[in-house]
């Protein structure tokens, strides 16, 4: 049995969680997921300004703080912290670990930004999986393009003796599957086992979201959320595993909490497609085998496809969102009146927007009219207005029209403490497929 922990569900997750995972009990692996779809474009921008940037600095800081424990325990660490600059990330990690003889592996080759024109020229259209349009239609606005590699490349780096594996864009699930493939010698066509490792990865990839975080079922009684434990996979060579957490930590792992996470970001449950396999979520059998222990068995998988998924980001205009808070009496009526006044002023200025959206926090921002009419004496309502346009100047002007409402609109309004809202560049996401023959991971392992 090997113990594989998750210490990070996204870039921005708890800084303490990975260190708690390391210090509270024995582990074989710590995995950390830093890359969301939009993260790659942010990192690409950072790198274009500074050739030494473009990776998850939080990871380097974590390694620095945990260096003594990591070096002395032999714990292995797998993280997609490399972003668009995994080699520079390795240099920073080597410095942070400050221990001679540590083998650090890098999985790269996922960044195909420089190859896009060549690929399109050779007929790889990289059509949007959402709309079917070819990439050509937004080619000039592309900011990043990364292939999702799977667990196999990570297993290969581990087989070369890496204690720390830093990847660019790999799948979240591959971070957990890779160590299982390596430790148990699973072959790349043992589909049921690969599916089991993939589902283990899916379960823990969002950190505490499977240990009682963001859990609807009986959330009021989940103990000690302030010290919530992050998940640990206890994996067996036959593909069964238990999801648990360190003793003494908060949160709760039950069949119900696990089910919620299994369904998170789910499409067709019989066809969960990764570069490694296709996992069938309808084959999962769950059993509570102890307090905070849920066992998975029966998992089936199918052969992987001939394609990798590519995550492409592109510039798609500008947006800004502003908010004002109106208090009792007539809070909702005031917020609605302010919205009408703002829209009249925007119209009069002749500003063109692709979308103007108004929501009333406390009334309908989450559920629309499903929430029903608010109480007539509602204590306060937040007016939230957003605009979107390709014309940056129009969005900029909007930000200057919302603030004056504090003085020249309906009364008892507050909430402009931080001033005018900011104009944001919209970086949109273009999912596409690329034949596996067109991209392959590059793996290198070096000793500090």
């Amino acid at each position, binding site marked *: 049995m090997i113990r594989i922990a998750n210490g990070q569900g996204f870039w921005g997750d708890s800084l303490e969680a990975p260190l708690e995972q390391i210090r509270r009990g024995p582990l074989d692996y710590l995995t950390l997921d830093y890359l969301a*779809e*939009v993260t790659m474009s942010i990192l690409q921008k950072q790198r274009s300004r500074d050739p030494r940037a473009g990776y998850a600095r939080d990871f380097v800081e974590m390694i620095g703080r945990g260096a003594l424990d990591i070096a002395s325990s032999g714990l292995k660490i797998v993280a997609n912290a490399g972003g668009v600059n995994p080699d520079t990330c390795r240099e920073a990690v080597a410095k942070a670990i400050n221990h001679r003889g540590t083998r650090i592996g890098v999985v790269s080759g996922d960044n195909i930004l420089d190859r896009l024109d060549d690929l399109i020229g050779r007929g790889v259209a990289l059509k949007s999986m*959402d709309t079917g349009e070819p990439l050509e239609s937004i080619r000039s606005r592309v900011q990043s393009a990364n292939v999702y590699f799977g667990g196999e490349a990570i297993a290969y780096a581990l087989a070369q003796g890496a204690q720390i594996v830093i990847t660019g864009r790999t799948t979240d699930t591959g971070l957990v599957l890779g160590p299982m493939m390596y430790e148990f010698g699973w072959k790349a066509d043992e589909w049921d086992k690969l599916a089991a490792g993939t589902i283990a990865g899916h379960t823990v990839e969002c950190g505490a979201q499977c240990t009682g975080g*963001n859990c*609807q*079922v009986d959330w009021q009684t989940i103990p000690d959320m302030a010290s919530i434990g992050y998940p640990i996979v206890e994996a067996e060579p036959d593909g069964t595993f238990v999801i648990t957490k360190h003793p003494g930590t908060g949160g709760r792992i039950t069949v*119900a909490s696990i*089910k*919620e*996470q*299994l*369904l*998170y*970001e*789910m*499409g*067709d*449950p*019989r066809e969960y497609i990764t570069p490694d396999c296709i996992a069938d*979520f*309808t*084959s*999962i*059998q*769950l059993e509570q085998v102890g307090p905070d222990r849920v066992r998975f068995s029966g998992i089936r998988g199918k052969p992987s496809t001939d394609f990798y998924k590519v995550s492409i980001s592109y510039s*798609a205009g500008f*947006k800004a*969102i502003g908010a004002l808070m109106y208090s009792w009496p007539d809070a909702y009526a005031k917020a609605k009146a302010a919205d009408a006044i703002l829209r009249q002023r925007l119209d009069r200025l002749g500003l063109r927007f692709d*979308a103007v*959206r108004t*929501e009333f*926090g406390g009334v309908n*921002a*989450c*559920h*629309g*009219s*499903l929430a029903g009419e608010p109480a007539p004496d509602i204590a306060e309502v937040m007016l*939230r207005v*957003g*605009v*979107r346009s390709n014309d940056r100047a129009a969005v900029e002007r909007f930000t200057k029209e919302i603030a004056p409402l504090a003085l020249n609109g309906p009364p008892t309004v507050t909430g402009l403490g931080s001033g005018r809202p900011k104009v944001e560049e*919209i*970086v*949109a*996401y273009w*999912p596409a497929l690329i034949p596996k023959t067109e991209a392959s991971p590059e793996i290198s392992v070096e000793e500090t």
Partner: protein
Amino acid sequence: MARVKLVEIAHARSGDKGDTSNVGLIARKPEYYPVLLEKVTPERVKRHFAEICLGGVQRYELPNLGALNFLLHESLDGGGTLSLKADAQGKTYSAALLRMEIEIPDELVPKDSIRG
């Protein structure tokens, strides 16, 4: 028969993929799953979310988990970074689905039901 809100017999979690939101609906007890299967049809869910979901609704069954997975297409104002919604990732749509009222046999009404 008795009328109950789904929140009494199910729990849920939702997330996003582009402009599509997925809502996983899970029976709190095994005996509730057949009721969900019969009553919470894709057509019913589309009507429930008419204002939010501008595209179609697909439903997938996970009998092993006593759960249904719904895909709500075109429900996130373009999705991800494009969206102007406070809930651009549909994280609260799970709770929005739990507002739905369905008819269930009297013997299935939870004992601690606010209506029971």
